[in-house]
């Protein structure tokens, strides 16, 4: 009974190959709202299901979770579709929740961690929809130099990607820091792998931005974010920083 239950949870707190389920569903979701809901709810379902089990997490889950996180982070390096990229980063990040579970973390904190990973991805989903509206697809390498053609949009996109790849001040940074610190005391090798995954995220983020933000622009008649939308995104980012510093960061 225990293994089927973990397999079910492994669908929502992604473990390879069950992780393909989430990416399949996300890939099929055409509407931004649906994608946002998926990004927000998916790991929360996993954590809720996890609470229903009273046994400790089996040992084989940790290496599988690490493998999943590393695999999706590595694959994200070669991706050009922004939607797919956010799905892979989400998979990689949520898989690391299995490591956090091993430590001394309450279930509330785990829910917050999942939310912390999801929130910037939600912003990216919105920005991805914006790119689709402007260019026909959110896909790198086909158009570049956004910084020249749509500077406000570019600035927000850069900050959101930085939030996703766990740059300091954002909640993801504190979650990753907590995960690594816990792993160092319990399983040093695991800490090294988590740090490696973190590094891969940074690399993947840099590659994504490299394909969109810099370079010559060939965009004609593309409209930038209006002030209201820019303000809303900025507010979202400020909330993320505040959540990082005073929420998740404050809990640690």
């Amino acid at each position: 009974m225990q293994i089927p239950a973990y397999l079910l949870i492994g669908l929502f707190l992604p473990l390879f190959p069950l992780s393909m389920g989430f990416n399949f569903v996300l890939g099929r979701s055409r509407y931004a709202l649906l994608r946002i809901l998926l990004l927000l709810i998916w790991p929360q379902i996993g954590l809720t299901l996890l609470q229903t089990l009273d046994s400790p997490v089996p040992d084989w889950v940790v290496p599988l979770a690490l493998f999943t996180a590393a695999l999706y982070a590595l694959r994200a390096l070669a991706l050009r579709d922004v939607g797919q990229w956010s799905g892979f980063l989400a998979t990689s990040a949520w898989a690391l929740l299995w490591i956090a579970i091993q430590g001394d973390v309450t279930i509330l904190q785990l829910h917050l961690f999942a939310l912390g990973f999801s929130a910037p991805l939600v912003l990216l989903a919105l920005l991805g929809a914006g790119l689709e509206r402007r260019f026909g697809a959110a896909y790198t390498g086909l158009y570049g130099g956004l910084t020249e053609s749509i500077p406000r949009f570019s600035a927000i996109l850069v900050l959101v990607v930085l939030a996703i790849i766990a740059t300091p001040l954002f909640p993801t940074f504190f979650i990753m820091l907590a995960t690594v610190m816990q792993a160092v005391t319990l399983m040093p090798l695991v800490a090294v792998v988590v740090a490696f995954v973190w590094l891969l995220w940074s690399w993947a983020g840099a590659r994504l931005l490299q394909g969109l933000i810099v370079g010559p622009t060939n965009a004609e008649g593309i409209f930038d974010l209006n002030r209201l939308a820019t303000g809303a995104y900025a507010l979202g980012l400020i909330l993320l920083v505040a959540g990082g510093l005073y929420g998740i960061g404050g809990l640690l």
Partner: protein
Amino acid sequence: MTLPLGQQLKIRTMIYVAGEPIPFFWPMRSFIHHNPLHGLEHLPFPEAVATGAQLFHGRGFLSRQEHQRYLAQNKVAHTALVAGIDEFLVQQPSIPGIDLPHWLMTLLTRTTQPVMRANTLADANHVHAVIQRTEHLDATLDPDTLTAMLHDSLLGACPLYEAVDRLYGTGIGTELDELVIKSCLDFFDEGQSVWHMPGRKQGLFSAWRELALRNARLFVRGLHIERILENEPHPEGVIASVMTELGIPEDKWVSCFSRELSRLHGWAGFIRWRANAKHYYWGQRYPADLVDFLAIRLTLALALLAERSRQRIATDRGALENLIQTRPRETWLRHELHSGAVLPAYAQRVEQTLARGRAKPIEKCFDDFVRAKCHHDAEDQATRLQQLAATADASTSLEALTAAQLESLMQVLQQFEDAEGMLWLRAMESHAMETVLRDVNLAPPAPRDKRPFAQALFCIDTRSERIRRQLESAGDYQTFGIAGFFGIPISFMELGKGSEAHLCPVLLKPKNLVLEMAATAPEDVAATTALEKVLHELKESVFTPYVTVEAIGMLFGFDMIGKTFMPQSYNRWRQRLYRDKPSTHLLLDKLDREQADSIVRAVQRAVVAKAIEQEFELEPEAITDDMVRELREAALGHAARAPALGEALALTPETEQTFIQRLRSVYRIEPAFAQLQMEQLARIGFSLDEQTNFVSQALHSIGLNREFSRFILLVGHGSTSENNPYESALDCGACGGNHGLINARALAQMGNNPRVRQRLRAQGIAIPDDAWFLPALHDTTTDEIKLFDLDRLPSSHVVYLDRLRSGLTGASRMCAQERLPQLQLVPEECDPAEANQHARRNAMDWSQVRPEWGLSGNAYFIIGRRQLTRHLSLDGRAFLHSYDYRADPKRRLLESILTGPLVVGQWINMEHYFSTVDNERFGSGSKVYHNVAGRFGVMTGNLSDLRTGLPAQTVLDQGHPYHQPIRLITVIEAPYEHACRAIEEVATVKNLVRNGWVRLLIIDPDKNTAHIYDHNDWQSRSLSGSNPDEQPMESTAS
């Protein structure tokens, strides 16, 4: 295996031909303005621009939006646009219901983006269906068309790896460029790196080969270079074997080589120049040429292709041909995806379908994609046409067109947009020509009752125009324009330097060497200089930098703060720490045989004395003259022995003979070397005849052969800026990118020589005894003019110096006041003193990316009397060369101006033109990202092609052109026949004019007419004051 000599020569010849379109790139220490399309000057301008665009992937004209900005600023002749449209339409069919002149004018002036799409799948029928809102026509792409398109794109002249990149997104081209750049940086370094590449003396290919065969990093990356290099020691052999292995037919090699070289045209241009510069120290020491460069490039390309072939992709020509034939649909989808042409909405589907590799889904994806792309293209094209029609108030006319008529319209629009750049260019030039024709003054100068207080000869440089105008308005000054090297090609060896600098246009090779000699006794090295040397060595060592930073890093911090916040006062304080350069004289007079012999003997004696001191550790006072004389005689073979030394030191005859032998072999005291020294000494200075000729030529060429003033200023120019790799670009182009002071000093010294004046008198140039040639330097960044060699000034002139200085200071300040608002450093209404203060600060500010606008804005080259434009403010846009045709009945002087200064002016103009129209490709992009490479060039970031051309800060102002890119409008003030015959005599200029690289305008003051060369013919018109637009243009009978 070594390639036969004949084959080797054939390959060398092919590469020579392939390299012809690549422009030279001179080291930036002496920046030379050049035309980036110099290698295509044999073609008419529009054709060369099209070829250049293909080869260098650069734009040849400004965008329509920028042209429209100029139109709004009234810098484009509207009448010329109308005439251009009419001329274009003569060869086009008429289309019922379409007012083509109106449509085309609307397109030019009221539409910002191109109307016609390139590379579209939609034809006129598809577009027609969209306009008529009828059902979409089905879109198909038949296999033959598809195969032909793929052949054209992938198997044309492009290198094979580019085709592979376009199909698989492998990025081989980028990786290859990086590897080649790294190799070039290693080899060509001129002292920037502390550790040098070994074996450089063997040449580029050999040195690289030695390293590459042992390069573990290449091996780890899976690049097995040794397989390519092991059997081929020579670069030609490597090139032949790689091209054969890649399956490229020999008839395509030249075009393929050209494409290879143009990918890194900065490096290729530098290597090409270096291989041709016989005097270049680094080139002599570490030889390299394009054959070496190409061999390295092709070897690495083949290795990268071989490495990628392990991913089971097509990496040779045969495999690509097979792929196109057997799987054209898949190949086309790949091409669309990786060349960036795919519809964004399809990108993911195409990528995933190709990744799965199943035939049926690929075919389905292909069909869907072709349909979608065709619809998308048709919709987009129709929208653009509808927008144009709406702007032209002709929407109903567009809708009324049949498919065939629409096709005609689309063809006309396509051809017009292709020709649009030239049309705008000609209209801008037309406006610029009208401006000068409207305002020139053809009246002869009023007779003077006394000579001017001072005459000043300035460089023809556009920046001299302002200071000349201000000086003329400051008092009784007469100014002249002459090429800034004053007609004297000098090879100059500066005091304390061991190498020669050529102070003349790069078109000339100087024969005479001028040495700078200290006029005061040598001084000890200043403490600051010694300290700087120690610091430099500490920084260059492997370990000491860590300690140095900790120990004295704070000092550098102070330096930084001083330079940043108080540049002027801090730099002034710093300069006080250094000793001033001692007063110097130029060694200008040629040595006679006896003097040269005496110098060689003196040097030999000094060397022998030093050798005795070093070899036998004798004190100088123990070395007698007899010893030295005997040893010198013996070493030169004039005597068998040198007994004085033997006796003094009790040497055996064998030891004595050994030392004599050492004097010959080590210390070069031997007849052959003495002969060489005599030849070197023969290069020093100018004979009296040469000096007379140079002075005479300079004065004649500007029409100054009488009414000499008390002061004849020879004003060279240079610039001052901090932290600026492009500093030399702001110096004098006629002096090979150096300051013009030395040439001014040389001509002044010659002109003040009584023996030269005596000979000039015999030629009809009577320079009065109280006329004095005085050298000066115009600092174009601060506008200051500083006088030199005042120690030689006769005492009779000293009393007038104050008046001269105050005139010069006034002119400098007024010039700064006029110029600085354009740099946006001061407001428009600032006073001269404030402007001067800002200009001086600007020259010392190390954060300033634009110390001055330099030659930006250049538009005219005016050859004529000053009277012609003296009353005009030309805003520093004109090269002004003084010329009086009355003093040149045989046209020799005019031919000389056309041959040298005009050609240099055209290079400068074209450099600015192309740097403006496409700053990223033909210019060097933003200075902000520049890094100095190897001490001879700059790169963008840490690794890029050498950036040729001018930076954005020189030609652009907030992203828009500051320099108006037009071809050089050359104005010759002379009778029509006189000027025409001179042009016909100078083949280079004749070709430039006929091919449209310069616009030529002859102003005939005798007949009061202007003659413009246009459309391969001379057009003439009267200059009698009526509205130029109403003036009839007539073809001039030739």
